[in-house]
């Protein structure tokens, strides 16, 4: 196996990880600040992709679609928070899981009613089409590089937002003691709505960007949601830094495992069997990593509040 192939796969892993980070960041923020398990996060990812595809089809511009999906998912997030989620903060996690699972069903069938059962068309913007040659002779699609760049920018932006701004200060305060900041006169309800809308917009952004690579259809959010949960469990629930590290770890392990395991097995048991067995083991790899992390560090790599 050539170094350029390894390098290309590494980039693929990073790109996958960055996409997972956008999902996991919102999920972990919402859990960290509000103590809420939001299963409907994958539906917001789906809404982002559907809105982007629809607006892009109307206007012919991916960028307008992306902007619309950010605004649309943030609005949908705020609406969901005010209408449903707000009533769940005082309840235990089982109630939250039930209610947000119901939201998945409602949003999925609502989306089918609005957008239809067939997959929608969404292509990458022409500016970012084609591939570029990187040092080491790797040809890599420009759009995937753009996803990596956008994801890293969001990571930096989130870091600055949380550590340097007044809103970030309130978010951190909300994480450590929500009664106290309420008592200090911060409008905690407003803060929760903002955080939820922010998380929703991040999921929508991931959906829109990935939608151009994949198929945009109802039900596309749930497989990603599972991976996003794996990421925040590995990274430490509530920690944005943990989400970034966890997401990159999951992205790279999953991608490299898919390539390397069948090839390594092929040397031992022959290519025909290795293809099937290797693929099966590779699909388990991230869960094995999660189990290991949980065994060694039960609170994840970066427990919140450290």
């Amino acid at each position: 196996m050539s170094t350029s192939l390894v390098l290309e796969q590494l980039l693929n892993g990073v790109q996958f990880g960055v996409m997972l980070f956008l999902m996991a960041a919102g999920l972990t923020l919402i859990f960290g600040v509000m103590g809420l398990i939001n299963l409907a996060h994958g539906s917001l990812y789906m809404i982002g992709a559907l809105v982007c595809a629809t607006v892009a089809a109307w206007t012919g511009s991916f960028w307008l679609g992306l902007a619309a999906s950010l605004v649309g998912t943030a609005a949908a997030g705020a609406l969901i928070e005010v209408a449903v989620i707000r009533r769940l903060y005082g309840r235990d996690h089982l109630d939250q899981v039930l209610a947000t699972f119901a939201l998945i069903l409602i949003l999925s069938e609502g989306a089918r009613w609005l957008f239809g059962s067939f997959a929608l068309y969404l292509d990458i913007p022409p500016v970012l089409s084609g591939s570029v040659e990187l040092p080491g002779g790797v040809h890599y699609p420009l759009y995937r590089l753009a996803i990596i760049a956008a994801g890293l920018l969001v990571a930096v932006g989130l870091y600055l937002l949380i550590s340097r701004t007044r809103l970030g200060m309130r978010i951190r305060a909300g994480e450590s003691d929500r009664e106290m900041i309420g008592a200090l006169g911060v409008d905690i309800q407003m803060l929760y709505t903002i955080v939820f809308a922010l998380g929703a917009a991040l999921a929508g952004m991931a959906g829109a960007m990935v939608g151009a690579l994949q198929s945009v259809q109802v039900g596309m959010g749930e497989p990603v949601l599972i991976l996003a949960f794996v990421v925040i469990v590995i990274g430490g629930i509530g920690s944005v830094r943990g989400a970034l590290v966890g997401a990159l770890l999951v992205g790279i392990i999953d991608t490299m495992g898919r390539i390397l395991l069948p090839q390594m097995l092929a040397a031992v048991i022959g290519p025909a069997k290795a293809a099937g067995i290797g693929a099966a083991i590779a699909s388990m790899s991230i869960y094995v990593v999660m189990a290991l992390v949980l065994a060694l560090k039960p609170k994840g790599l970066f427990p919140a509040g450290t």
Partner: protein
Amino acid sequence: MRKILAAGLVTLSLTALATAEPVKVGLITTLSGGGAGLGVDVRDGFMLALKLNPDGAKDITVVAEDDAMKPELAVQIADKMIQSEQVDVLTGIIWSNLAMAVVPNAVAQDKFYLSPNAGPSPLAGDKCNANYFNVAYQNDNFHEAAGQYAQQSGLKKVFIMAPNYPAGTDSLNGFKRYYKGELAGEVYTKLGQTDYAAEIAQIRASGADSVFFFLPGGMGIAFVKQYAQSGVGTPLIGPGFSFDQDVLAAIGDPALGAKNTASWSPDLDNPANKAFVDEFKKAYNRLPSVYAAQAYDTANLLISASTKASVKDAEAFRAALKAAEFNSVRGKFKFNTNNHPIQDLYVREVVKDGDTLTNKIIATAFTDHGDAYAEKCAMK
């Protein structure tokens, strides 16, 4: 003279009356979730055939229910339909794992099952049943045709790829049954995987002269789009499912020129098919897929049998089904000893017709092709 004619007419209508026993059909298909596009097409194709033949279908009633692509739900619905709704015939299932959960049970209770899509190998082989008729294909068929096409067109180094589940391994085995050249690579992906960057990098590095892949639904859309963006450019071959009408619009132009194999195509030149495609477009404002075509044939087979024999007379009804005397949109159609089709399989190419992407037949891979499992079936 007039008297004789009149008497003849009376007897004719009397015989028609005598056999016009009501037939209750239970249509179980996927109408919600990720696979709903296929189920909607099956339902629409089936109902269209009944609508276009009001005389033949006047005694047929249909109850349709959504299985959400879940085997346990499909089993529950089938039980309910058999026990409380008392259906005579079941049909509609898209997915092989659901068919395996429902069909053996239904035929054991002396119900008829007509498959508009799924054709798992056990039901064609040692678990075949006289009450189970597959109007679509045996699962391997489209993949065998693709292998035959690759062999005929002199390909030497094909990269093959499918999801790691029973229909995926069947697919690659079907392909390899007729393709005898070297494999540039054989990859099983995770079911439901949506990012194929890693596999595409392997294809690029493998030096393949073409790529055969079976990735149904959203997986295929994702793969073809990413493949086009990567600029690898090695030609794509797939079974018809990978490039059918339900996914073409979502894939867009990257699908142009891809070769795929199926038993049907919208441009297939026969009167029944022309009428079907026109009427489907008129009724639903979109082009039909191969799933819709198969369901349309299934309904027409049912009509043909129910006008000839009473469904309560299982022996006669079975014989009427087996005779397959209906105008298939596939041109010719007959049943093999194991109640699976013997039919032609075509190689199609994705082309642009105005603004719409669709398929056009460019070659015939097999004439009167059965399946590899018929010998294992005890029925003769």
